[in-house]
């Protein structure tokens, strides 16, 4: 019965099937909201964070999803600023993903603070020295931008565009899309950096502290780069996933490959700089602040292996994505994209969790931390919400403009065969 809302020229599953798909996610969301409610009502004693582990799963989640959500701004940047036209095929999807990542991050932050009623103080009494101020400002601004970018996607809906005002409005908005893309890009670059700075400035935590370039620690720039590098990979990954789950051809394989290639190039740059930074950090920064690099990795389970894994998770996909032959094979392409995403996750994990686990005082001890079910539940709520919103957007809005043409084209063309396998 919701046929008239579904975009023309594409096929979607039956309503019943769709609802069946939504149901488990809705349930998960409900559970997550309950957990979050507990944390808000009873206080943060519901979590397993403590005075030493002041940040936990949630901050790790925020940093990771925002890094992955970077796909939104970077694709926009490539499309509207650098005029990579082929990316028009994924931009809408990217916007939705970005919106959910950032929305989720903000929501979780709202639960994470002890006195949410005062959260707006940051805007009223900002401390210009604080990286967190930068983050808060940029993320909230960029979230607004994403919402504005999301509006035309909604208004393009077959039913809604029948209302003349909306049509006009979304047309007007569309003219501004370049402006928003520009603003969004600037904001995102900035807050991705600030998120990196968040830990890079902690001179009290030599494991996270980095040398300053200008007014920002090196992590500022590394985060921008890693986010930009992994963002496209994540778009690639999600698009592929959606194709698999929906069983439809949504974009031409070339699009995914070019995303992969961009990712690869940036990964190369990142790996280079990250290596450089690590060397400086171990040989200059750390000794200066009176610590021995060996001490960082003396504590089980976080041995040197974690550093190796982190680097490997960037290095391997870089190689694959920069090798046209491998890139052309969907399996390699997707798995390397997935690897890159894991890489960024590990990187964020190391900077948040490992930093806090390591002792600073000589007589202090290494700390373990496992999130409580309330924390995990809140985490899952973000995931569930993202899936729900994306599913609905996918069903009713035109997330992949190429989908219509691809339906008309005869499927199973040689070079696309692997990418579309199991359709």
């Amino acid at each position, binding site marked *: 019965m919701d046929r008239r809302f579904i975009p023309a020229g594409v096929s979607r599953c039956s309503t019943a099937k769709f609802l069946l798909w939504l149901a488990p996610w809705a349930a998960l969301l409900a559970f997550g909201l309950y957990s979050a409610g507990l944390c808000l009502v009873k206080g943060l004693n519901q979590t397993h964070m403590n005075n030493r582990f002041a940040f936990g799963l949630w901050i790790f989640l925020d940093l990771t999803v925002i890094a992955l959500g970077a796909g939104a701004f970077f694709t926009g940047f490539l499309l509207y600023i650098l005029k990579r036209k082929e990316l028009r095929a994924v931009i809408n999807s990217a916007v939705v993903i970005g919106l959910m990542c950032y929305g989720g991050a903000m929501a979780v932050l709202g639960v994470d603070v002890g006195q949410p009623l005062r959260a707006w103080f940051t805007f009223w009494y900002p401390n210009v020295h604080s990286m967190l101020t930068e983050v808060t400002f940029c993320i909230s601004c960029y979230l607004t931008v994403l919402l504005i970018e999301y509006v035309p996607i909604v208004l393009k809906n077959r039913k809604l565009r029948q209302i003349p005002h909306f049509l006009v409005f979304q047309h007007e908005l569309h003219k501004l899309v370049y402006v928003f893309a520009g603003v969004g890009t600037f904001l995102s670059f900035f807050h991705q950096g600030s998120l990196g700075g968040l830990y890079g400035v902690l001179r009290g935590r030599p494991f996270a502290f980095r040398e300053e370039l200008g007014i920002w620690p090196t992590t500022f720039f590394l985060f921008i780069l890693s986010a930009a590098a992994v963002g496209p990979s994540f778009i690639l990954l999600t698009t592929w996933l959606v194709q698999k789950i929906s069983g439809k051809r949504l974009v031409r394989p070339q699009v995914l490959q070019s995303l992969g290639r961009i990712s690869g190039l940036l990964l190369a740059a990142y790996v280079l700089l990250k290596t450089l930074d690590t060397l400086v950090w171990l040989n200059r920064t750390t000794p200066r602040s009176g610590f021995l690099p060996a001490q960082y990795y003396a504590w089980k389970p976080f041995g040197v292996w974690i550093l190796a894994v982190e680097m490997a998770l960037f290095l391997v996909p870089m190689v694959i994505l920069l090798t046209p032959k491998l890139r052309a094979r969907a399996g390699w392409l997707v798995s390397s994209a997935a690897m890159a995403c894991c890489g960024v996750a590990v990187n964020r994990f190391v900077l948040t969790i490992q930093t806090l686990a390591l002792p600073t005082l*000589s007589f202090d001890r290494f700390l373990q931390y496992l999130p409580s079910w309330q924390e995990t539940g809140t985490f899952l709520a973000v995931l569930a919400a993202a899936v729900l919103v994306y599913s609905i957007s996918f069903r009713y809005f035109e997330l992949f403009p190429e989908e219509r043409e691809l339906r008309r084209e005869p499927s199973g063309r040689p070079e696309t065969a692997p990418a579309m396998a199991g359709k």
Partner: protein
Amino acid sequence: MISERKPAKICRYGMAVDIDKCTGCGACMIACAVENNVPPGNPDATDLTGITWLRVFKVDNGEEYPRKESVYFPMMCQQCGVETPCYLVCPQQAVDVDPATGIVFQMPERCLGCRYCMAACPYHSRYFNWWDPKWPAGMEKTLNPDVAPRMRGVVEKCNYCHGRWHAARQRAAEAGETEISPGDYVPACVEACPAGAIQFGDLNDPTSAPAIAAKDPESFRLLVKLGTDPKVYYHSKREWARRIGDPSQAPSPKEPSRG
């Protein structure tokens, strides 16, 4: 809101702690909690979720009996003088450093409980209110009116008994003075220590105990290489104990032991 004119007198309050004298009796910790209206621990509180503005640790030289030596080590906020980590990272100016006293102060009413400052503090001397503060029936009568009780979800820390600083200023005003006399402002832990291990004073006043300790070769500070200029000086005649302050020198702890 800072006015152009500098404070008439600039103090840098600091402490000198002789860890050879400390017997780890804990009187300072209790006096601190009493003075600053810190509630008794929630039944579920642990050494990681409790609130102790001042905490005494037991530190040993990593040897086994009979070569094992131990000291008791009082840790309060080290009142970093430069690049104050917590002050720099607080997103909404809930941490303030008083130019007149050098005291680093947490304003619970401004704090939103993001705990970034706790992640930033190398000394772990900041504590979060994980629970609503609760006093046994009747005990709220014993609260100190010079200190405001904190609510759930905010960070708090040692501020050198700032309430006593206010009180001392009032006593000065009573005598028509605008500056407080050195002996008149003494934090609760200093007053309570039966061994006289903790001393307090203005580092700008060369005759004060901390100023003298600062020049003593047997004195040391914690993690001084971080470059935050902590204002608490520890003193010990034992060479191994002096290495506590420098993680690259000190013996790394083995299994966690109490204290």
